[in-house]
């Protein structure tokens, strides 16, 4: 198959045929005109050969449609450059060894599901002993000290705890995304951390089913983790990022010795 990476198009059963499936509801009673409207809408979206293959009336005043068509748009994959979590993934043993050898002290993390969000399963999967998909959570790692504050924690409390225990990383989980509540809440947390003057001392990490690393970076976080994240992914990142930042800080010290002894 000779795929042109600069013009990727959907694949039905032949390269570049552009086939895709749509389903949606229009707030009008079912009629030949409503069907036509569905077709026109799909055309406006850039579909050709539009087939409205199913149309069903919902409660007399709505119409549901299933549509197939060929998308005329294409995407240049070679131009896509998205940030990726900067870490080599290591195993449980490797992470512990890495911390022992290269950092030489336990890493302290605080974690919570903040705001009105009460979905703790995701953050628990990362932090708690029990872990996720057969992997232990960070709590079980001898070289991590963890504080999992649970659900619906005010951002203020999370930051206060981080200061209190001198945390190396703040882990926040956001699952509910309705009306972009997670964006507001994450922005608020980032501002708080900044305002408390600890931003350069902690890694700020967010996770959740709708979180991407790209989004996390946009919001000023150090990393973002989406669905399917394993504790070791997060552990690897924290260990390596912390080691980097300690090294940088040390170098910074070396570079400006006068600043250290004013």
């Amino acid at each position, binding site marked *: 198959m000779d795929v042109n990476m600069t013009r990727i198009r959907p694949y039905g059963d032949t390269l570049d045929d552009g086939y895709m499936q749509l*389903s*949606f*509801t229009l707030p009008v009673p079912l009629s030949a005109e409503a069907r036509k409207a569905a077709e026109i809408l799909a055309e406006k979206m850039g579909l050709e050969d539009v087939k409205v293959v199913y149309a*069903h009336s*919902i*409660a*007399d*005043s*709505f119409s*549901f449609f299933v549509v197939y068509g060929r998308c005329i748009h294409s995407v240049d994959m070679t131009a896509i450059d998205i940030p990726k979590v900067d870490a080599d993934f290591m195993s449980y043993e490797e992470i512990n060894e890495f911390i022992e050898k290269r950092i030489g002290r336990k890493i302290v993390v605080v974690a919570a599901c903040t705001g*009105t969000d*009460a979905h*703790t*399963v995701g953050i*628990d999967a990362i932090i708690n002993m029990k872990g996720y998909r057969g992997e232990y959570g960070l709590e079980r790692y001898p070289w991590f000290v963890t504080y999992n504050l649970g659900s*619906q924690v005010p951002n203020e409390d999370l930051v206060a705890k981080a200061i209190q225990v001198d945390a190396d990383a703040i882990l926040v989980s956001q699952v*509910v995304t*309705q*009306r972009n*509540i997670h964006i507001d809440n994450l922005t608020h947390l980032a501002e708080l951390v900044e305002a408390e003057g600890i931003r350069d001392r902690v890694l700020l990490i967010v996770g959740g*089913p709708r979180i991407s690393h790209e989004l996390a970076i946009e919001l000023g976080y150090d990393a973002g983790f989406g*669905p399917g994240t394993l504790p070791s992914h997060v552990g690897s990142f924290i260990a390596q990022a912390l080691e980097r930042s300690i090294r940088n800080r040390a170098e910074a010290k070396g570079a400006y010795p006068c600043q250290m002894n004013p």
Partner: protein
Amino acid sequence: MMRLDIDMALVDRARWAASRIGDGIQPTIDAYTTTSIERCVLRLLGVNGVDENDVPLPNIIVDQAQASGLLEDGIAYWIGSAMLHEGASLPEVIARLSSGKLSLDKVRPQDREGVEQTIQHEANRVCANITQLRLEREQLITELNSTVPPYLYIIVATGNIYEDVIQAKAAAKCGADIIAVIRSTGQSLLDYVPYGPTTEGFGGTYATQANFRIMREALDEASRECGRYIRLVNYCSGLCMPEIAAMGALERLDMMLNDAMYGILFRNINMLRTFIDQHFSRMINAYAGVIINTGEDNYLTTADAYEEAHTVLASQFINEALALRSGLEAGQIGLGHAYEMDPDITDGFLYELAQAEMARIIFPDAPLKYMPPTKHMTGNIFKGHLMDAMFNLAGVISGQTIQLLGILTEHVHTPHLQDRYLAIENAKYIMNNARHLREEISYKKGGIMEKRANEVLAKATSMLEQVADISLMSAIEEGMFASIKRERTGGRGLDGVIRKSERYYNPFPEIFMKEITSCNFSPVLWGDEVKG
């Protein structure tokens, strides 16, 4: 013939243990009242509305009474005293209290007998009202209901009661039998009930009396159009359990999410507060002919459904024991369970079916409420739709009563209109296509399913016996439920728990329990078809 050979001796032991658990906690429940119970009494007596700061009047009056140390006598005692003292009618007293012209701490305590007489009269009137509504429901059911179980239960959750109405009616027209208005996030932690029609809920719509009324009216209309009685559900849960029960009774809600331990475990509400509140709220539900839905599905959103299946059964036994103590009939106790096993387990369908059949056998008269797959739903809406189909199949094979329909977009968003249509289509197709499969098949003696069911039962029984030995509250303190530890004095709402005084007075429990325990109370909950 029993469909699955369940060890009935174990069932008896489990039920007996649950009964001991109930007996253990009941004296504590009886010794206390709560701010929410007293606010509920006020609501029943007709106090409604908010002040200029949107604070509900029941809260204002009860808070004042609590501050003045009057609450241990029961707000009814003081209202009665006020009527006698002021020589005013109940509406007048309420008006004076509401406008701040009268404060209960200024009222001279009156003779208990006189108070009782005065209030009893008012309470009877309210109760007659509720009975009237119950009869109205029963008449509508007899007149209209014609579908067969499992009844299709669908949620709406736009946050705006008026949008909810559009969604709910559309769902009814598609074939839904029961509409639940999902409650706004966080309402369970509010120590008051919001007021008036609301349009800005979050992930759900606020439970207010006005919202109840708006939706009930809409569904009555839909019932007539569809020729089916469409039931309405809301959440009788959180810090305002009793008040919401009262609101539901007054607005003819048909079902209420109402669990004895949900608030403690999953919302960190104080356990004393919860046990006391659930008892009174359930009396109201019992009297109003409401079916409660317990929340056992919640265990499985955090725990593994295969490993922790016995905790669901144990909780069902406890919910049953406590519900019976509040006067709920077996037919009103909609015990919850859920289809939440990892879809990739080999023979997972057999384990789910075993669990569902087991619940059906152990609680033969309960209108079991079966919750769909949620935890293992992913953005793969196609596979999700299949998981919901297998859930629907398990529901119709095992003869569930209330089937909360799974939605293919569970992982994605609260249901859109088309998601609901597809969910109902799914259930109708499966349940019709396999309608009598239940009667057609039997299970292998000593097979995978029978073994599984008995294992789960054995584990639940031993868990219940342990709980009964150490007492329910200690068991919760030790984290025996959902691996969550709660302290007796921890959680929200303990400040609203008040030990009753000698002269404590609340007219309602007596009225409720008298009617309930008299033989002539047996609400019509479903049409004739359920028996068939």
